[in-house]
Structure formats: structure tokens, C-alpha cells
């Protein structure tokens, strides 16, 4: 019964956000055009580089980059979704509905996430048809990678939300993680390349960033057709899972802490 109410609540958020999104017709059109332009711009850049990515994924650079950018588009809404939707006049009202924290967080990001999945497909289709992206997808591994990624990013989203409720602006933790991800998470190059550019061992730092695991597991699953029963692959997924298992409760606790602290200070409705 409670699960069905939770699902209804998540659906309510999704339906509301979808309906609201469709009323902004100009924005819908510009978003769709941005997706198309985005794929082509990254595709052309990667074509120009034309380098083999022999490290980690044994792929070509176009496939590596297009898949990475698609993953980036898929995951960013999860981190940004709650943060963008957090405003004090909504927060107070929503908290008075007595809904659970996970439902609040999932509900607020669901439409953005669904939309990003919808945009994920044209990225890959255009990548394959126009730029010759080669994918070696393993479906179970991809599903698992997406689930682990979603859990990691949901945890981060809750950390971010909890801190933002207190700071009323950008939270320093998520800001730092997002800034560092540009250099260390391997969006546009394999993280081991950092050892070549800087000094050996610097890429070790990358593996402490949650986003690195999101990109890594999704690329493994989509580019290398891995078997999750292979011990080497299983260990990679297990390490990602550990991040998820740690970040989810940390995020939950941080969110609750943020709400309680704001309630204690009487600043829940402030911004």
C-alpha cells in the first residue's frame, strides 16, 4: 500500500513537470535543437582527433567521447534536478504533505531523468549512423551500470540538497566534486591518461570521485560488451556499488540533517 502511494507521488511529480514542460513550446524546440547540435559538435571534434583509445576500453575516440557525452547528459539531471527544484516556498509546502525523503528526491528528478533518457537515444543513434560509433553493449551490464550510477548520483543529489537547504546557495561539496569531475572523471579522455600528462599515480585520485565510476561503468557496459560474471569486471562493478552503498545513506542523512537544522534555525522558508 505504501509503495503504491510512493509510486503515485513520484508519478504526480513526473506528470506535473512533464505538463509544465510542454507548455514552454519554445523551450521544447530549443532543447531538441540543442541536442542535435550537441551531438554534431562533439562528433566533429572527435572525428578531427581520430585517436584510438587503447587504454581501458579498447575503443576509438569517437565512440569513447560520444558515449561519454551521452552519459554526461544522462546523469547531470540527477545531480541538478533536486537542486534546481529546491525553493523555500515549494519546500515548505511539500514537507507538509508528509512524504518520505526518497520520494521527494526521486519525484523531483524523475521527469528530468526521463527526458535525459529520451535524449540519450538520439545521441547514440546519430553517433552510430553519422559518425560510425561502434558500440559493444552488454544489456545486463548496462542495466546494472545505470542502476549503480543512479544510486550514486541520487546520493550526491541528496547531499547537495541537504547542504543547499542550509547554505541557501551552491553547496561547496557538490560544487567541488563537479569542478573536479571535469579534470579527473574522464569525460573526454580515459583517466589513466592523467598519469602520462602529469605524473604517474595522479589518476588514483580520479577513483575517489563518484562520477568517475559512473562514466567508467557505463562505458565498460556500452563499449566493451563485458560479462558481469567475469571476476575482473565484477570487481569494477562492486567498487562502484560500494560508492552507491555509502553515498545513498550519507545523502539521506545529509538531507534529513539539512531539513532539521533549517527547522531548528527557523530558516526553512528563507532563501
Amino acid at each position, binding site marked *: 500500500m505504501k509503495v503504491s*502511494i510512493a509510486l*503515485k*507521488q513520484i*508519478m*504526480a*511529480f513526473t*506528470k*506535473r513537470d512533464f*505538463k*509544465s514542460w510542454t*507548455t*514552454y513550446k519554445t523551450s521544447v524546440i530549443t532543447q531538441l535543437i540543442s541536442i542535435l547540435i550537441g551531438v554534431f559538435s562533439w562528433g566533429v571534434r572527435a572525428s578531427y582527433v581520430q585517436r584510438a583509445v587503447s587504454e581501458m576500453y579498447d575503443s576509438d575516440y569517437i565512440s569513447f567521447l560520444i558515449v561519454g557525452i551521452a552519459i554526461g547528459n544522462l546523469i547531470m539531471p540527477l545531480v541538478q534536478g533536486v537542486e534546481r527544484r529546491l525553493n*523555500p*516556498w*515549494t*519546500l*515548505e*509546502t*511539500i*514537507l*507538509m*504533505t*508528509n*512524504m518520505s525523503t526518497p520520494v521527494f528526491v526521486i519525484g523531483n528528478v524523475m521527469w528530468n531523468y526521463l527526458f535525459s533518457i529520451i535524449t540519450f537515444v538520439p545521441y547514440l543513434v546519430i553517433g552510430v549512423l553519422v559518425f560510425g560509433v561502434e558500440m559493444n553493449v552488454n544489456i545486463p551490464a548496462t542495466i546494472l551500470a545505470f542502476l549503480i550510477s543512479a544510486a550514486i548520483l541520487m546520493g550526491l543529489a541528496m547531499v547537495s540538497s541537504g547542504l543547499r537547504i542550509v547554505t541557501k546557495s551552491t553547496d561547496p561539496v557538490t560544487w567541488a566534486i563537479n569542478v573536479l569531475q571535469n579534470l579527473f572523471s574522464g569525460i573526454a579522455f580515459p583517466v589513466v591518461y592523467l598519469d602520462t600528462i602529469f605524473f604517474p599515480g595522479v589518476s588514483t585520485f580520479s577513483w575517489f570521485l563518484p562520477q568517475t565510476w559512473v562514466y567508467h561503468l557505463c562505458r565498460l557496459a556500452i563499449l566493451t560488451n563485458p560479462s558481469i560474471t567475469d571476476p575482473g569486471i565484477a570487481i569494477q562493478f562492486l567498487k562502484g556499488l560500494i560508492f552507491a552503498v555509502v553515498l545513498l545513506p550519507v545523502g539521506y542523512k545529509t538531507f534529513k540533517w539539512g531539513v*532539521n537544522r533549517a*527547522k*531548528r*534555525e*527557523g*530558516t*526553512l*522558508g528563507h532563501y
Partner: protein
Amino acid sequence: MRGHHRGHGNSIRSLDGIIKVIKGNQGSFIEALGGLDLQVEEGEIFGILGPNGAGKTTLIKILCTLVLHDEGEAYVNSFDVQKEPGKVLDNLQAVLPGSRGFTWRLSGRQNLEFYALLYGLEDEAARKRIDYLLELTGLLERADDGYQRYSTGMQRKLLLCRGLLRDTPIILFDEPTTGLDPYSAAEFRKLLRDRLVREEGKTILMSTHNLSEAQEMCDRIAILDRGKIIACDTPDNIRYKMVDTSQFNVALHENAYVERHEEMLAQLQGITGVYRVTPDISHEGELKGLSFRIDKDMDLSAILESLLGYELSIKAINSEEPTLEDAFISITGSLPAPPWRRHRR
């Protein structure tokens, strides 16, 4: 003796004094509420009055679990607001004008449908309830218009609809008619008093700084000043008990204002129980009347005898009842009430 402390029925009760300390902008701490003790009974409209910053909104937010108090206990229908927030929220709904939470691009009905889902209402029940509330508030005809097209009054009514979606026995209002035009405000007050309380038996706790609204609507009021309750009673009792003076007016057939009238004013001013005498003199120098600020219990015959002694021709006499505004100023303003009237009830 926890059970002994708890409220019963559809009541709100704070015991042992709620203390709420909040952080100031510069890191200092401000005591927003300093030991409240009040009980709101089932089926009554209870008003919290006070100047800006008195702690009215903080009290309401404590009761609807949006602010945590530091000391004391508060119960809603016998549920502790800190220990059992879920059950408290099952029993009350708050209508806070600052926390809209409506999506501007959706219609009023769609917004209500969204909240009905969040509250876990069944589809059919939600549909019926929404139709009922839209009809109740007069929004039915405009239900499918975008929220952004709603006037302030309509937005406030939609807030009320959302507050009533779950049909809780207790509703809290924070400044319910602020920003409404006089007609909408009167309509809104009628809706709360006649439909929600008299017909549906709901309990209402509302904060306001509109004194005439409190006088008109509330069964009882508490006057809050700097976080403390300094009076709590029916509006009439507060008016009569908290104000020491009343206004007494004498209209005169016009006479030229002459020197001996100065002497008369001095004599009137000297009568025990008369605090102030103000003559009403026209531009032409005619004495048209006299206004007296007097002790509310004084015998008026001494004044009348004095007036007749000066052969003034009296046209009309009237006395003005103390208003809630008089009481409020007396309690919180520059005319503080005597200490024995400042005790908490």
C-alpha cells in the same frame, strides 16, 4: 503524567511554555517565542494577534512542524509536534501565504490534482473533493485556467482549496486575508467562519494583525508581543478588561468660543476620572462639541453638571466602546497596561 498534559478532541495545546530561539543575521540569537501556554479548543476560531515580529508565524510553523522549538511541548490532537510530526500533519493543514508551491503553467485544477496525489488520495475521492472545494470557494468556473492568470484573491482561494484537500479537523492560517481587497477579504472570512467552522466543525487557529478581522471572526484571541502572550480571552473581554479608558462625546448647539470656556475646560479637566478634554471648535470660532477621554468606570454626572453650570445647550451625547485597537495599543503600544493586567492567563 503525560496523558494528563495532552490535549483532547480537535485541540491544539502547548504546555510548559514553548521556547523558540532563532539565529539572527549576525550570528546572534533572538528569542522568537518565550514561553507560551495556550490551548485552542475544538470548533473554535482562535486568533493570534501581535505586531510584526511578535512570533505569530513562528508559532504557526512550530505547530505545522516546519520549525522545531527548543523547549516546552506542543500537541495537536494529543500528538506531540516534535515526536509525532507525521500524525500531527494528518490532523492539521496550514495555509501559509508565503509558501505557494503552485506551478504557474498549470491550471488550478491540475495543481490541486498534483497535491491530491501527494496526499495519497484515491482518484475518485480526489476528483470529488476537488470539485467540492472549487465550488465551495467559487473557483469552479475558472478551475481550468492557468494559475498564472489568477488574481491574488483567487490564488488565496486556491491555497485554501489545497489546505482543505485532506479534510483535516484543524486548519492553521497565517494572515489569511493579507493582500486581498475588502470584498474578497469579507468573502473569505465568511467562508472560514460560516462554512468551515459553523457547518463543518473545524478548528481554526489564525494569525492576524487585522484587529477588526479578529474582532469579527475569533471566538478567542491571544495577544502576542515579543514572543510572549500578554492577554488571552474573548475579543469582548479583552476590549473591556484591558482598556482603562473610554471615549465620551458631547455635541453642542453652536456657541461662540469665549474666554470662560477656557475656565470650563480647566474645570472639566480637574474632575476625577477625566484624563483629557478636547474641544471641537469650528473655523468660525464656534464651540461645536467636547470629547472626553475618561476612566471607563467613572460616573458621568459630574461632567454633565459642570456643562450645565456653563449654560451650554447639549444637542447629543454618546460614548464610544473601547475597540480591540484601543486594547491592542494599550497592551503593546505607548500606553502599557498596568502590571496586574499583564499576567499571562
